[in-house]
């Protein structure tokens, strides 16, 4: 039992065993992809065979009101399977060399500047402090990383904490050494500038003297000749200046600039900063997107790259060194590293506070693993809002395009430029929409399958459901606003990836049909399929078995318990998915609700009424028919058996949310 509950150690690429390969990064097809393709093809063929049998030979024309919904639900699921298989066709694994091991070497002075954005809303200052500390401790040159706490709650405690942390950080040996280094360099520059300034009058006099000497042809004396040669030598060094005086002045200017830069660097050593945007009442604030955009545009941040972290996601020290190499490409023509078109690198999310058995199904090794790798293989790795590094230029560039559109329609959008001009703000899942816009603008994304930050998951049902509802609503909202199938700029495969995700959120209706069908049979004897019997088993079983096997191949290495949990939640959240579709289509206003990070206490049966009702009726129906069977009044025991099997499957899937609603942490004494 303990073996089952302990975490598998090797779900993510471990960087301990770095294999040797030429270049700085490589990618290859995910292991067992061929096996997956083989089984997936058979699965789809069998599924098709089953479906044509259902359409042509087994539709119950006497009960079309039940038969048609079931058939539609089955077709929906089949198409979902086809899309999923296509999306998983080319999953890739990547390996990169860390920043300092790249060959040819990238000098530390060329490493890009990075801003760490920690977004928070109403989280406790202690939680954010832990995250900020870890962010400051990221292994990266101290002059090139600044951590910003973007506090959307504008709390005095947070501000105080940021200031304290900033001071503390500046006292650290690393920072002190850096400050000393910069100060020495600064002093050197100032000294040189002073010397130069002393030289200026003399240079002027010397050149004047030389000019008169040449004019009067008095160049015979050794001193004058030497001066003339020396003058020419100096001019040869930098030919764009006509006189040495101009040269000296240019040098003076250059030194002044360098001094200014050193001074900026010195002030940049205050590495933990606090930004709380003004939130005037009565105006849209654009939630998390507004928070990030304000930080980008308000004029305080300048980093070339942005690492986004949710308040509770604690980064590991190697984060930047392992992720940044993706953003540069070596140009062998000029021997330099150059920026490429990678706009973002996403890393996995995992949680440190999951109770044993993960009752709320937060573990997402399937998504942060094969699914993201599949998306990555088709250049559409998703951005999921945290644990990712973004290229500022890409965000701003793409954001400006959409701002220009909004501005052309409505000049007043200028007022909120700093809230909408970067990361997409038009959906409550700003992350997905942003990635889609980046892809449409020709930028690329990467999924890096190494766990580089660990966060907290909501640990009660209410928050969990709230979070899932937001994802579902946001995704469908994006689809209605910017349909990936018609959005210009996306490749065919990217369209497919985005559409597949959106399509999957319509599953609520199909799931409801699957749950209701057996109940209807138990109470009325009505069946949607004419031939439950050998014929049914012959068509259904092979498709079902291959489907399971294919799923297991995809999830290879992920504990069976977790796969089962994710399957349970895919079905049992059906009311939530229906609600999400309904709320978007009926255009009821949708608000971004920040997922609470602290446990909300209580038992939540009221949140899962539909599931409980279905659960109850299923059990009732089974017992009712069992009673009939005992009394000898059940006409077709085999049909009963099939429906009972189906029901038990349904019940075991539904049990997850019911168990989660009852789940309480063991009280700590």
């Amino acid at each position: 039992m303990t073996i089952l509950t302990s975490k598998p150690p090797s779900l993510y690429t471990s960087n301990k065993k770095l294999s040797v390969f030429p270049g700085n990064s490589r990618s290859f097809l995910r292991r067992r992809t061929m096996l997956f393709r083989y089984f997936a093809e058979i699965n789809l063929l069998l599924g098709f065979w089953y479906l044509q049998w259902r359409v042509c030979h087994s539709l119950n024309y006497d009960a079309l009101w039940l038969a048609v919904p079931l058939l539609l639900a089955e077709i929906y699921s089949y198409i979902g399977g086809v899309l999923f298989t296509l999306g998983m066709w080319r999953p890739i694994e990547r390996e990169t060399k860390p920043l300092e091991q790249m060959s040819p070497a990238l000098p530390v002075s060329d490493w890009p500047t990075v801003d760490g954005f920690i977004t928070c809303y109403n989280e406790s200052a202690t939680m954010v402090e832990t995250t900020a500390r870890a962010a400051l401790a990221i292994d990266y040159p101290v002059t090139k990383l600044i951590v910003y706490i973007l506090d959307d709650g504008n709390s005095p405690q947070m501000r105080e904490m940021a200031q304290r942390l900033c001071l503390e950080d500046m006292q650290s040996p690393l920072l002190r050494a850096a400050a000393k280094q910069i100060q020495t360099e600064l002093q050197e520059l100032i000294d040189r500038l002073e010397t130069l300034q002393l030289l200026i009058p003399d240079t002027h006099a010397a050149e004047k003297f030389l000019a008169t000497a040449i004019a009067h042809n008095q160049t015979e004396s050794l001193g004058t000749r030497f001066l003339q040669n020396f003058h020419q030598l100096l001019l040869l060094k930098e030919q764009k200046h006509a006189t040495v005086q101009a040269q000296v002045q240019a040098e003076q200017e250059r030194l002044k600039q360098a001094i200014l830069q050193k001074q900026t660097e010195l002030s940049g050593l205050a590495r933990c900063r606090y930004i709380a945007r003004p939130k005037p009442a009565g105006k849209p604030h654009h939630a998390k997107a507004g928070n990030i955009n304000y930080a980008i545009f308000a004029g305080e941040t300048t980093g070339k790259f942005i690492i986004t972290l949710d308040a509770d996601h604690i980064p590991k020290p190697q984060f930047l060194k392992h992720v940044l190499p993706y953003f540069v490409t070596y140009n062998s023509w000029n021997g330099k590293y150059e920026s490429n078109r990678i706009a973002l690198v996403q890393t996995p999310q995992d949680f440190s506070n999951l109770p044993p058995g993960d009752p709320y199904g937060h573990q997402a090794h399937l998504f942060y693993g094969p699914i993201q790798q599949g998306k990555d293989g088709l250049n559409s790795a998703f951005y999921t809002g945290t644990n990712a590094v973004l290229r500022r230029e890409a965000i701003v560039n793409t954001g400006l395009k959409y701002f220009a559109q909004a501005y052309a329609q409505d000049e007043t959008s200028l007022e909120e430029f700093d809230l909408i001009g970067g990361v997409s703000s038009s959906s409550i899942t700003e992350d997905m929409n942003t990635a889609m816009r980046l892809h449409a603008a020709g930028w690329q994304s990467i999924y890096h399958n190494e766990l580089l930050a660990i966060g907290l998951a909501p640990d009660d049902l209410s928050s969990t459901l709230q979070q899932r509802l937001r994802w579902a609503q946001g995704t469908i909202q994006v689809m209605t606003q910017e349909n990936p199938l018609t959005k210009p700029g996306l490749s065919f495969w990217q369209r497919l990836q985005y559409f597949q995700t959106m399509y999957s959120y319509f599953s609520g209706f199909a799931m409801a049909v699957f749950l209701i069908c057996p109940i209807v049979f138990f109470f009325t004897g009505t069946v949607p399929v004419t031939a439950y019997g050998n014929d049914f088993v012959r068509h259904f079983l092979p498709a079902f078995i291959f489907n399971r096997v294919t799923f297991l191949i995809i999830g290879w290495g992920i504990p069976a318990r977790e796969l089962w949990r994710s399957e349970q939640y895919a079905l049992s959240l059906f009311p939530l998915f229906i609600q999400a579709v309904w709320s978007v289509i009926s255009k009821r206003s949708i608000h971004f609700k920040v997922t609470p990070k602290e446990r909300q206490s209580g038992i939540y049966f009221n949140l899962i009424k539909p599931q409980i009702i279905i659960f109850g009726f299923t059990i009732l129906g089974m017992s009712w028919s069992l009673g009939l069977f005992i009394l000898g009044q059940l006409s077709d025991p085999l049909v009963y058996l099939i429906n009972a099997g189906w029901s038990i499957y349904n019940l075991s899937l539904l049990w997850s949310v019911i168990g989660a609603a009852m789940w309480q942490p063991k009280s700590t004494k």
Partner: protein
Amino acid sequence: MSSDVKVLQPVGILNATCANKLHEIISNSIQAKQTSILIDCAGIEFMDSMGLSCLIMSLKKVRTAGGSLALTNTNSQIRLLLEVAALEDSFKMKAESLVVIKTTNWKNESIFYLENL
């Protein structure tokens, strides 16, 4: 609103770092009730997207304060960026403010340099 037009002459590359400096100068000038601002772009060699967003932010601030912001001597690269963002008209001063420009003594004391990092 003061009738003087403040002229800024940034020099160098307008990127994130320099943009922040421009931000600061414009905010200060708005605080000093100087809300008619002309940016002479003759010295700007290149402007990136952060530079452009800084101009938009400045426009926003100046407009909110009831003033106006205009650009002059824009090079082809800057014009292209403005065109793509469909913003080129927004940075022109209205006719009445143009009169103001003509009648104002141009003050060049506000020249500043943007360091090229």
